[in-house]
């Protein structure tokens, strides 16, 4: 499954570790939410990048105390029709100020790349190779947006407001 980050297909720095497998001494690891929460204090003190796979039916507010110690949060789209992780992403980025990598995993299609970017995701475990290759094209399809999100694009209302209050000439 290709991983897209900063618009390019890249190798995954993180190694996924199953709940019953031993954690390697060093290196970036990605573990389940259950495993992380069972021993969050010790795990977040580990001297290597740590990532958590967060299920889409669990309140992301639970992660609040640990956010500055997590390097990656992977949110899950069991099917692309299940959009709960869209809301989780926006809350993590815009309400709780998470600055690490926010990864979309599961069924990720090119038709959602723009939405995902706007919601604060910055890496994408893409289902189809052809979609991953089309990342750049797919994410430049839109130049205008109606909603303000944490991605920095001004909404149409905000842009018009500027026009409205700009000095004449």
């Amino acid at each position, binding site marked *: 499954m290709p991983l897209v980050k900063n618009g390019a297909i890249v190798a995954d720095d993180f190694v996924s570790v199953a709940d019953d497998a031993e954690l390697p001494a060093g290196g970036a690891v990605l573990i389940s939410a259950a495993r992380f929460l069972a021993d969050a204090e010790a795990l977040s003190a580990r001297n290597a990048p740590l990532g958590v796979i967060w299920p889409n039916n669990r309140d992301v507010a639970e992660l609040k105390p640990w956010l500055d110690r997590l390097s990656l949060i992977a949110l899950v789209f069991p099917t692309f029709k299940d959009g709960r992780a869209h809301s*989780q992403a926006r809350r993590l980025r*815009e309400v709780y100020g998470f600055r690490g990598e926010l990864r979309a995993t599961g069924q990720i299609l090119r*038709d959602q790349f723009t939405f995902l970017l706007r*919601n604060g995701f910055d890496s994408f475990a893409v289902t189809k190779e052809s979609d991953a290759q089309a990342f750049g094209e797919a994410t430049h399809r839109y130049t205008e947006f109606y909603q303000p999100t944490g991605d920095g694009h001004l909404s149409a*209302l905000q842009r018009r407001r500027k026009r409205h209050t700009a000095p004449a000439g």
Partner: protein
Amino acid sequence: MYAYDEIDQTLVDERVAEFRDQVQRRLSGELTEDEFKPLRLMNGVYLQLHAYMFRVAIPYGTLSSAQLRKLAHVARKYDRGYGHFTTRQNIQFNWIALKDLPDALADLAEVGIHAMQTSGNCTRNVTADQWGGVAPDEVEDPRVWAEILRQHTALHPEFSFLPRKFKFAITASDHDRAAIKVHDIGLRLIRNEQGETGFEVLVGGGLGRSPFIGKSIKPFVRGRDILSYVEAILRVYNQYGRRDNIYKARIKILVHELGIEKFAAEVEQAWQEVAEGPLTLDDEMIEDIRSRFVYPAYEKLPAMPDELRAAAGDARFEAWRRNSVAPHREPGYAIVTLSLKPVGGPPGDATADQIDAIADLADKYSFGEIRVGHEQNLALPHVARRDLPALWAALDALGVATPNVNLVSDIIACPGLDYCSLANARSIPIAQELTRRFANHETANLIGRLHVNISGCINACGHHHVGHIGILGVEKNDQEFYQITIGGRADEDARVGDLIGPAVPYAEVADVVEDIVEAYLALREKPEELFVDTVKRIGVEPFKERVYATR
């Protein structure tokens, strides 16, 4: 009329390009039908019984004559020469080829029409009182707010994959013409004691297999906070709405299961996270949208011009005027409803030629503007009263002046088994038969305001629950049967109708409706007591006795 600026136009054009690419990938097999389905639905494309159906948005029901003509063009060029106006301020085309859809959308985009989110599990086309901006009793034009919400909900990155569809409706009058209590979010524009504009927010209304009347979640949300507040509602719904069972996925079920107090507390908490943030509106933003609603330059005209006085002697004109002409905020003007319910016709259908002719009449008599209401009729919103006789003659020649608006033959009906892959029973032929039974205008007039709503299945597209008389098609042993409810209504006193007894076979439906109407005529206290008020006063039993005594 709302005039698109370059931002709106660019976005619509970009959407067309994206959909063209999606259709291309589907046709080449790169997208599976399973992957394509949610994408096409979000562009109003259904796969129906016989063909693809294409549903085009008419936000808050307002159209220009140029837009209307473009709809006629699509009907003619890509479909079979007619369109069907729905209960959701949309128009549907029933026979369109997938390969033609991008071109049809591109043609519509030329006049600022799109099909964004007319279907799918996303925020749907925002509807509003079709008389917005012209109704004498409104606080202010609700369409300004509907447009702000339309923009905010279009291609919303967070809420395009909700548990189920999600519908907004807005009214600005005490008399609710937008049926806000049967929408996921209903907004009632009001002014508080300080003169500030805001909304009473209702949530969790809806029909379908579990009908609910919306509950008030907050008595007053300031206009500037409306986007952040509905964002909070949607965020709670997106997170907690059920996804395990499609029949329990609507927000009404979540509100029902949690209780409105608990749900309101969740929303309040979510709102605290986003209130006073970038979603907060300011006067400049609101004013910018308002400034692009262009209102006609009305003249000072007499309320009772000579032309109207002269025409009053014509009984046919008078019959039409009494039920098709409504007061306007400007005294010399009127709002004219065009009945798309001719005797024997499918409710809400119009041919391309009719649509073009109506566009011409709108140019001549209504400053080029047309409205579409949820009752599946059209309206010309700015007609000078002196022009009423001439307009009537033209509408009559077109077949859209049947004098039955709000009367028993002004029937709301879904497409039913004739078109819809979900339906269990036919709707259109029942409606057609009823319009024939009640074709006599004198009788219909004697009966007074009476709304008959027909749905061909439990999904309730014909809003049968809120019909004064509701007819629901069901299937029993491979045969069409119909359950009859009475006493429903969709206005400010909205309620769900009560079943009067066992379902009846197809052939008996019209007889049963006639029996109910006769019972009402015998039971009402006085001629002014509406059918629905008689039902409220005496209940279902007397009607039940009358209908089932001989069956």
